């Protein structure tokens, strides 16, 4: 009997291999016609991958197909051989063939993982087993391969529906908890978010997988029942009762969950680490405050995009947190006291990077949008909120046509806040606008400019210029650094450039970042730090932050396993600070599970929060 089964498996494999070669031949003919090797390789790989998935289906469907087709089932069951031996004699060669094919796939994918691997090995093995198990249960009912494939297709659709229902449970849970969904724009991004939503509490994952495993249990039970294996009779009885219960309760549970879903704007979550070492987490319309000792929840705060603006005197300022209005609110994490700091009017928007807190006062820059992208927005007003003064103090500073780039600075000598801007209309005049509205023109710059520690740096096409204020308060040019500088600003950074103590990172698209040393002054290309091994992707993948000492800390991720590598820029070279194992790979997942501000980083790992404080990434365990 084993010999018969081996022959059957060998015959199937030859048929499968024939069609695989046929695919390769067709691809080769296409190559001869198109003379495009890349397309040939791509099509060959696609064909191979498809047929690799066809193989387990063929193996599974063939399990009892001979007996069904040739009416040999009674003869088989009347043999002086136990059912288990019959089943094993059939399964063993098929499982061996499947294992060999998976080993071949794994070996090829290891050789060239970048180009060949369309699925990671473990999920690929699971997919193969799923297809095999579904197919083998169908083999009991069909005696023709073609009809079996049709039946398999239907079975797969049913299974996909069950899997979708299982994911729906997890997905809906994730929605209510506000755990996922930032870029749900395409089916692919939805799938990616669904997969990432599996970082859920264990009970949700177990419930979801239980639903997905139901077809497996059903398949095994069907085979065992057909073969009349004694040990499965009682299991079958309980399974029937359980299935009935599940069939009644599961749709109700799914309906209840769907009805409980409230529409949410997908603005994304945030995890904000405050100066007091508390972590603010947004979950749907709730603000959850984590400390090592407790978890507090503030409810009913609306469904809005939230951007933490910063904290001071124990308060945290959040952008657009209310349900119906667009407000800036400040929240006291310890008491959960909430105040509206500023309520936006139509066409008003918050200037990015405009939060500044000093001497119990918070300063925001509010813009009024002109509605035309070709025009720069006009700067409308500034807002100051006094601690203890619940009436927001709104003061219109100036109305100007200004460039997008605006940076709030603080003049330590004058002890006044200002923001830097560049006027297009005057050929690129860099000016600083003081808090009282007065405008001080500084210099002309061809590109952008930034301010730090009493120094001003402007960038043009030919050079970067360094200016300083002298004892009389006049701006003096101290140095000119030749070079073509075209700094870009990383999307996730709220600051145009990353500040360091006397040193700054200038990101330039397509090349390594530059270290601008204001003390020297000099511009030095920055060597890649630990873990930074993708220079060409450095810009788009850069996550550069500033710690509480105003030092830039640059993070990247190692390929395997998912790891955050923190490095600090000192003397224009990177010094390794530490590594955090995050358990996920890929920038998208990193972005979804990692948050940073000046006090440290917050990492979400398998549904739990971990906070790491600057400068040494000391870990805080949170509730």
């Amino acid at each position, binding site marked *: 009997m084993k010999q018969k089964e081996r022959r059957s498996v060998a015959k199937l494999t030859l048929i499968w291999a024939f069609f695989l070669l046929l695919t390769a031949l067709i691809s080769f003919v296409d190559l001869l016609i198109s003379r495009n090797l890349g397309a040939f390789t791509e099509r060959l790989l696609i064909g191979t991958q498809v047929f690799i998935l066809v193989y387990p289906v063929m193996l599974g469907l063939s399990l009892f197909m001979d007996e069904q087709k040739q*009416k040999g089932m009674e003869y088989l069951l009347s043999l002086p051989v136990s059912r288990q031996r019959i089943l094993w004699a059939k399964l063993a060669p098929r499982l061996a063939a499947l294992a060999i094919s998976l080993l071949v796939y794994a070996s090829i994918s290891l050789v060239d993982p970048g180009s060949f691997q369309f699925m990671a090995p473990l999920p690929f093995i699971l997919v193969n087993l799923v297809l095999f198990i579904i197919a083998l249960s169908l083999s009991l009912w069909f005696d023709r391969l073609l009809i079996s494939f049709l039946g398999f297709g239907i079975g797969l659709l049913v299974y996909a529906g069950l899997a979708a229902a299982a994911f729906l449970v997890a997905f809906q849970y994730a929605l209510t908890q506000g755990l996922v969904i930032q870029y749900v724009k395409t089916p692919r991004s939805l799938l990616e978010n669904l997969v990432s939503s599996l970082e859920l509490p264990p009970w949700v994952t177990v419930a979801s997988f239980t639903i997905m495993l139901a077809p497996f249990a059903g398949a095994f039970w069907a085979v065992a029942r057909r073969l009349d294996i*004694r040990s499965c009779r009682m299991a079958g009885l309980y399974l029937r009762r359980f299935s009935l219960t599940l069939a009644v309760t599961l749709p109700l549970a799914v309906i209840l969950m769907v009805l409980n879903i409230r529409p949410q704007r997908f603005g994304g979550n945030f995890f904000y680490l405050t100066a007091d070492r508390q972590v603010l987490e947004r979950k749907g319309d709730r603000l959850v405050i984590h400390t090592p000792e407790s978890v507090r929840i503030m409810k009913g705060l609306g469904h809005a995009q939230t951007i933490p603006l910063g904290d001071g005197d124990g308060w945290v300022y959040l952008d657009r947190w209310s349900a119906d209005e667009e407000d800036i609110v400040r929240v006291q994490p310890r008491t959960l006291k909430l105040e509206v700091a500023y309520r936006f009017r139509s066409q008003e928007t918050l200037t990015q990077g405009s939060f500044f807190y000093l001497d119990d006062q918070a300063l925001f820059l509010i813009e009024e949008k002109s509605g035309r992208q070709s025009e720069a927005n006009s700067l409308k007003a500034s807002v100051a909120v006094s601690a203890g003064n619940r009436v927001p103090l709104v003061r219109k500073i100036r109305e100007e046509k200004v460039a997008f780039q605006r940076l709030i600075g603080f003049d330590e000598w004058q002890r006044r806040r200002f923001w830097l801007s560049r006027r297009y209309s005057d050929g690129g005049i860099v000016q600083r606008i003081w808090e009282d509205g007065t405008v001080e023109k500084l210099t002309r710059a061809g590109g952008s400019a930034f301010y730090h520690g009493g120094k001003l740096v402007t960038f043009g096409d030919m050079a970067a210029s360094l200016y300083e204020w002298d004892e009389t308060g006049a701006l003096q040019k101290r140095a000119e650094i030749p070079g073509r500088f075209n700094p870009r600003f990383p999307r996730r950074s709220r600051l145009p450039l990353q500040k360091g103590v006397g040193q700054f990172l200038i990101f330039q698209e397509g090349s390594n970042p530059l270290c601008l040393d204001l003390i020297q002054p000099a511009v030095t290309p920055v060597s890649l730090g630990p873990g930074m091994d993708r220079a060409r992707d450095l810009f788009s993948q850069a996550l550069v932050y500033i710690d509480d000492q105003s030092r830039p800390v640059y993070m990247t991720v190692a390929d395997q396993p998912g790891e955050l590598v923190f490095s600090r820029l000192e003397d224009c070279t990177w010094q390794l600070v530490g590594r955090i194992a995050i358990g996920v790979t890929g920038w998208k997942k990193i972005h979804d599970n990692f948050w940073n501000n000046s006090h440290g980083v917050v990492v979400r790992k398998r549904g739990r929060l971990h906070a790491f404080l600057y400068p040494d990434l000391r870990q805080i365990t949170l509730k």
Partner: protein
Amino acid sequence: MKKIVLETADLAVAFGKKQVLQGISVQFPAGESVLIAGKNGTGKSTFLRVLAGVIRPDRGKVVWADDMDRRRIGFISDSLSCFEDMTVSAGLDLHRRLYELDGVPRPLLDRVHIDGKQKIRSLSLGERAIFHLTLVLAQKPVVLMIDEIIHHMDAYTRELLIEALIETVDSLGTTVLMINHTFHDVERIPERVLLMKDGRFVVDEKTESLQQRVKKVTMETDWSTDLPILFQRDSGYFHEYYVYPFTEEMRQNGSAFQDLTLPEILKAFIGGSYEAKRTPLGR
């Protein structure tokens, strides 16, 4: 007392909600030939399938003699199940290997001119029956179970089968359990008759005893009587009454009771199953 080679204890099988076998307990001694009869759908084939191991009972058990070698249990199902895409020779060889036989004698196949290169699928039902008989006889069966294959066969092959069965019983002392609807052909074989109704054996008698206990009486008019009527058949001219269980005292009422052949007896039982008259069967 002959050795019991096979017995069942409270055997029960259900297909869904339908109870097909209801607590059957019966014993089969070595060398006995048993005819299992009953109307369609009473569970005869299911009973044999349970004995052969094709179906597992929901309740009860099948107990074989301690020294029973499973390879010496022969079963020919009414479906004549085999791998039809094989050739006859390949089928014989497969059976030889599966049952670990020294060889499979082919005299029966030769007598009906079945070529080893023929596909089993191409054999007629009668030829296939001979093929299956060849297979099971090669096992030198201690117990042989045959389910309704004779009606597939022509007169010649039918005779071949019966001869082979008789020879097997005589030479090996095989216990034969046979389901059959054409009783005339197998009249010579069974020593015992089991009649099944609604999943139970309602009659379990030796053939000779059965022939003593079932009689027929024919009347020209409708007969009102207290006798246990098993079955009644009416035509335009006369009425036939089959009496069971018959006792000699019944002759005292003057009626002329006739002896019956086994086929007639079985027809009466089966007919009575369809048309219960006066006294229900099994009481």
